């Protein structure tokens, strides 16, 4: 082993920091997902969340194994490139890029929706131009801050995460103790059970409450002893997010609002009934629920919109940061042109990537806001897309991008188990079948097959039920593949095959940099005992 190289001292994220990093990204999703799923899945909202939640747990386990085994930033794109080759690595990375740009717009949009709970002039349906302008200013501001290299401090991120975990627990406590009626839950589920089509729509939107697991692998490169820390924090993160999603959905269906809600004709409404056909409410589900929780709602009605807006803005910012980082990583792997590696001479940030993907986020914003801003556009949308509103359009694409990239991650996990059984795995997803593959004993992960079926079915639901998603999502992928083919041909690189990679040295380097020296020694030992043909 060479003694000249020294481990880099840049891993400063602690176990709590790793949890907070993930939570500030994934934890914000329920703030958007709750209202959207209630609008479509109605009496089956909790079932939609349960189905998506089970798939999410499997995705989380897959990410935990991969991030602990290959603790590098780059996430799904890196795992897929390593497991399935350059072309599929590009597709997974391109889908993640779609998700990150949607993330920027969707979370900024919903941030303004939450603020509208306190500042009525921000209500989208009443003042569409104001809403649009504020979202635009937020995106432009985040673009500027990221170009300048200003990021929210880890301490701030950790504090917001801690306050939010506390706040959500208290809302659920007060809600389940004082407002929850099990008989009402049963009655709502029996009387408002949706059609199969609406349930599929609900499930496809429920998955957006769990998007952001990329952050587990993003954090991996900066976490101390990632192979030991990541599994611990990931499991706590996965369970926490799942519990909040299931908790809110069950509470929303079975709660008696503290203040009775009436429609225009004076009829009393159940809480969940304020969401269908109401884009304004769909964007701020948690704030509306918190305000209806007895006692704690007195306080929660004021602070939850602000807390939600801050969390959503942090998440929107992670979209700007993440898209530029993924584009930079893809460019370094020669999956995207080198222009995306270009660093601003003064601020030393990937300015071209930041500006490109923020511009794309603005295009998505215009497309989402157009029906509200212009009556002519609204009639076109009504004719072509059954009148989907802005937030649903963004939710569609978000679900499409996530389901596509997660599908490839499961395939990559299976491929890596088969092709790279020598990398030590401190955490393995359970239920494995030992088989012999190319002369080596490997463990085939059955759970990954289940997870793939689950996420592929959610992808199918998205394509079947979302008029815009089924057009815009695949169009994004086709556009990307055309650009990829042109780029790789211009550079005389193989298009559908991979360029040569030295994964063995790369893995040794990754483990050395992570400070996982025992694992590195174990890896080198495993390679010595490997059949020569297999250990390439």
């Amino acid at each position, binding site marked *: 082993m060479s003694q000249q190289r020294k481990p880099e001292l840049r891993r400063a994220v602690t176990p709590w920091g790793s949890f907070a990093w993930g939570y500030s990204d994934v934890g914000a999703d329920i703030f958007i997902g709750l209202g959207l799923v209630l609008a479509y899945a109605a009496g089956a909202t909790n079932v939609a969340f*349960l189905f998506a939640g089970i798939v999410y747990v499997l995705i989380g386990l897959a990410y935990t194994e991969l991030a602990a085994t290959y603790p590098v930033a780059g996430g799904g794109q890196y795992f897929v490139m390593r497991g399935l080759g350059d072309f599929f690595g590009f597709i997974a990375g391109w889908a993640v890029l779609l998700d990150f740009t949607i993330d920027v717009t969707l979370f900024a949009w919903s941030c303004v929706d939450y603020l509208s709970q306190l500042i009525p002039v921000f209500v989208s349906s009443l003042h569409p131009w104001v809403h649009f302008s504020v979202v635009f200013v937020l995106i432009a501001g985040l673009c500027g801050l990221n170009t300048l290299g200003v990021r929210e401090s880890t301490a701030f991120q950790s504090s917001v995460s801690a306050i939010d975990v506390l706040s959500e627990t208290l809302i659920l406590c007060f809600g389940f*103790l004082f407002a929850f009626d099990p008989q009402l*839950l049963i009655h709502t589920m029996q009387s408002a059970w949706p059609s199969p089509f609406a349930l599929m729509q609900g499930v496809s939107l429920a998955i957006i409450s769990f998007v952001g697991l990329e952050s587990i692998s993003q954090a991996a490169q900066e976490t101390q002893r990632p192979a030991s820390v990541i599994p611990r924090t990931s*499991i*706590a993160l996965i*369970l*926490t997010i799942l*519990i909040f999603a299931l908790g809110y959905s*069950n509470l929303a269906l079975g709660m008696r609002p503290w203040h009775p809600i009436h429609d225009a004709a004076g009829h009393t409404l159940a809480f969940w009934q304020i969401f269908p056909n109401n884009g304004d409410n769909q964007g701020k589900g948690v704030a509306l629920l918190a305000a209806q929780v007895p006692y704690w709602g007195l306080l929660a009605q004021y602070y939850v919109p602000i807390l939600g807006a801050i969390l959503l803005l942090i998440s929107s910012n992670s979209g700007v940061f993440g898209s530029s980082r993924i584009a930079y990583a893809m460019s370094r792997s020669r999956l995207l042109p080198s222009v995306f590696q270009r660093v601003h001479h003064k601020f030393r940030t990937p300015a071209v990537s930041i500006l490109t993907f923020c511009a794309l986020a603005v295009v998505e914003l215009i497309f989402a806001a157009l029906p509200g801003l212009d009556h002519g556009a609204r009639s076109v949308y009504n004719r072509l897309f059954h009148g989907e509103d802005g937030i649903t359009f963004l939710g569609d694409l978000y679900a499409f991008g996530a389901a596509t990239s997660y599908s490839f991650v499961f395939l990559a996990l299976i491929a890596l188990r088969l092709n790279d059984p020598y990398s030590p795995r401190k955490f393995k997803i359970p239920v494995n079948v030992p088989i012999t593959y190319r002369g080596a004993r490997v463990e085939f992960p059955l759970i990954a097959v289940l997870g793939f079926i689950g996420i592929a079915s959610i992808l199918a639901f998205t394509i079947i039920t979302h008029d815009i998603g089924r057009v815009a999502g695949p169009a994004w992928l086709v556009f990307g593949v055309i650009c990829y083919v042109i780029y790789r041909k211009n550079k005389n690189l193989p298009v559908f095959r991979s360029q040569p990679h030295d994964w063995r040295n790369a893995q040794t380097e990754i483990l050395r940099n992570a400070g996982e020296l025992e694992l590195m020694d174990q890896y080198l030992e495993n390679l010595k005992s490997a059949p020569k043909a297999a250990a390439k």
Partner: protein
Amino acid sequence: MTNVRLAFFALYVVLGVIIVARLLGAGLHPEIVPGVILGILFASLGVYRIAQFLRSRAPQ
């Protein structure tokens, strides 16, 4: 601070048990399944965090 954190995790366990008990009290209907799973998860997370916390405090 230690006691506060432990109390917080214990709250998860108590809340999980209360949710399951209230749902089962409403009778055995298929509609309570997601809620019962929620309660079990809540309690499990509390137990997991308490165990994790105590393990990290235990002398090496």
